[in-house]
């Protein structure tokens, strides 16, 4: 491993619970091969949170679905390595994979109304998740456990609400129930796929607090998939920025948010609205659209949308894919960019545009 161990300084390859290396996921379609994720590597330790950020279609969800082995083997090609608690998941038999799913690795989906079965009671859906991994438990135990979990995630009167159907819950309660279902088997790794997207802002904050509390309590590794940098700032220890199926920047949360080195990350930061910021700060969208994964741009996938590409000599950006490698800020901060000194550009050109007050103070 020459690319070192980015993220937490103390990380060594042994104590990470989830290790993803060179993961590629492609789907053959009638128009050709769509490579949704390529050469993706990351790791998450117990008790830590990795935030994965990116636009729609950047491969965030596809890569985490691969961790659970949820892609249909017939319609997808997966290469690389995913190790969950030391077990190689790629190529694992469906039977053994099923023992992991919902047990040591659980997933919380966005839009809990669609993700919970409309015809079954909330409690029954929780019990089912418990019973499938606790074959020797009785239905009564499972029900007790479901009520306990609903109580734990803050559902009022859990012993009564356990018999409600999902449509009788409010949006926030449904997401809480979803979280309860994810945590019912004390998973070591929890993947939260945009858990707050469909919720209003006050409920979002409650759900994030809840997730943080539960993580401390269960000491699980968490992957937080989101396109909301506010969520990342609040929750994540490490951050992985994805673009067009690849990791484009990877480092600790604080480092990455204060010294981003990839123009795409700058773009994400520039397009965040902030109620407390100076009104003279501008909201700058990233020009263009995410690229088609059927025929990704040559060289750096971001170059057609990058406003800084002329700062790179020659047309390196259009011809050569930059490696994900450490920049000037140390081995723990990886970026996929040809710019020789991106931090300098960020501090002098980007930061004054998006946060003038920050620049004046320093």
């Amino acid at each position, binding site marked *: 491993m020459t690319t070192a161990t980015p993220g937490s300084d103390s990380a060594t390859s042994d104590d990470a619970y989830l290790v993803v290396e060179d993961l590629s996921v492609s789907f053959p379609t009638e128009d050709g091969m769509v490579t949704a994720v390529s050469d993706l590597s990351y790791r998450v330790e117990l008790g830590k949170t990795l935030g994965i950020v990116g636009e729609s279609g950047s491969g965030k969800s596809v890569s985490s679905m691969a961790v659970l082995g*949820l892609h249909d083997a017939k319609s997808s090609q997966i290469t690389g390595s995913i190790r969950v608690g030391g077990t190689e998941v790629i190529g694992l038999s469906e039977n053994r994979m099923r023992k992991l799913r*919902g*047990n040591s690795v659980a997933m919380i989906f966005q839009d809990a109304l*669609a*993700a919970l079965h409309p*015809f079954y009671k909330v409690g029954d859906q929780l019990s*089912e998740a418990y019973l*499938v991994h606790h074959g020797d438990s009785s239905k009564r135990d499972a029900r007790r456990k479901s009520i306990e979990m609903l109580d734990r995630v803050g559902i009022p009167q859990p012993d009564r609400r356990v018999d409600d159907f999902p449509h009788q819950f409010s949006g926030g309660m449904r997401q809480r129930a979803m979280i309860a279902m994810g945590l019912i088997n004390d998973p070591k790794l929890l993947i939260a796929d945009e858990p707050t997207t469909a919720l209003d802002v006050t409920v979002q904050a409650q759900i994030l607090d809840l997730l943080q509390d539960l993580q401390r309590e269960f000491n699980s590794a968490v992957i937080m998939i989101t396109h909301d940098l506010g969520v990342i700032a609040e929750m994540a220890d490490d951050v992985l920025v994805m673009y067009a199926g690849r990791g484009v920047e990877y480092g600790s949360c604080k480092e990455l948010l204060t010294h981003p080195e990839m123009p795409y990350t700058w773009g994400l930061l520039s397009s965040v609205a902030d109620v407390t910021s100076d009104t003279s700060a501008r909201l700058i969208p990233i020009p263009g659209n995410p690229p088609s994964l059927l025929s990704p741009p040559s060289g750096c996938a971001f170059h057609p949308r990058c406003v800084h590409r002329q700062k790179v000599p020659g047309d390196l950006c259009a011809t050569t894919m930059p490696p994900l490698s450490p920049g000037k800020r140390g081995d723990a901060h990886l970026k996929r960019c040809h710019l020789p000194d991106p931090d300098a550009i960020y501090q002098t050109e980007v930061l004054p545009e998006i946060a003038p007050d920050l620049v004046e103070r320093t």
Partner: protein
Amino acid sequence: MFAYVVKRLLSGVVVIALVSLSVFLLFFKGPSSPAQPICDRDTGNRCTPARLEIFERNLGFDNPWYTEYGTFVKGIFVGREIQFGNATIYECPAPCLGYSYRTKVPVFEELKERIPASFSVAIGGAALYLLLGIPIGVAAARRRGTVTDKALVSSFLVISSVPYYLFALLMWLFLTVQWEIPLISDTGYFPFTENPAKWFSGMALAWIALGIFGCTTYTRYSRGSMVETLSEDYIRTAKAKGLPPRTVVYKHALRSALVPVITIFGIEFGTLLAGTIFTERIFNIDGIGYWSLQAVTAKDLPVVAAVAIFSATVLIIANILVDIVYSVLDPRVRLS
């Protein structure tokens, strides 16, 4: 739930009343006298205007339509007396749907005799619809895009593009005339209570014809519905919980996928119960369908009217049952 059923039953009664009224008016207010067929029949085609008048008066067709409809409805509940062209008075006990012009027997008696035959055809055929259609549809949906799926879908398309009467006729011709398969070649209705084995063998061909032809529709519906359901978010959740594929498909997906299939099935089953003209005629089963066909040919108006009202009633009951099953399957329907 109880209030819901009561509400549905009440609205069903209103619909049946409206259907019976329209059927009644259709014959009563038509351009030719409703007594004409019976007059022709009873006088050996020497129906003079004077004789017709006697028939009309005896049958009450000279009264205003609402009075006569009242008599008709009253007859259903308490019975009535019916007089044709001569002095004979026929006693028609409740539920009275009139006397057959042809046989001079209460229509309800004849209907009652034919219900078991039609219901036998309908229940066996409908059972095959579901027993063949749903499993094949589910299997095709799970193998979507594969050769198996395409072979199933296209071969069923071939069957369903042949008109049903032709399909049933060819089947009868091949299996009974060409191959003379014993037992099942002797088609017809034999009461179940007298000889279950004979009942079964007499019905078998009708069931196979109905079942194979009808199940193509259900295969298509359940395949489509299943494909759609399998891509739902809650199916992904079920997989992510670590449930075995069997549970995911049959407990989580099938229940949702069945809802639209049940809706169509309920209505079609109702239609079957009300009699199947082609099936009963081709396989020589003396049920309501065959009977109504004979009644139409013989201009036996009371029988035709009774079949119309009976069919409507059966369909409405089937619809109510569908709605109840629907609300059992989908808890979201229960509240509304």
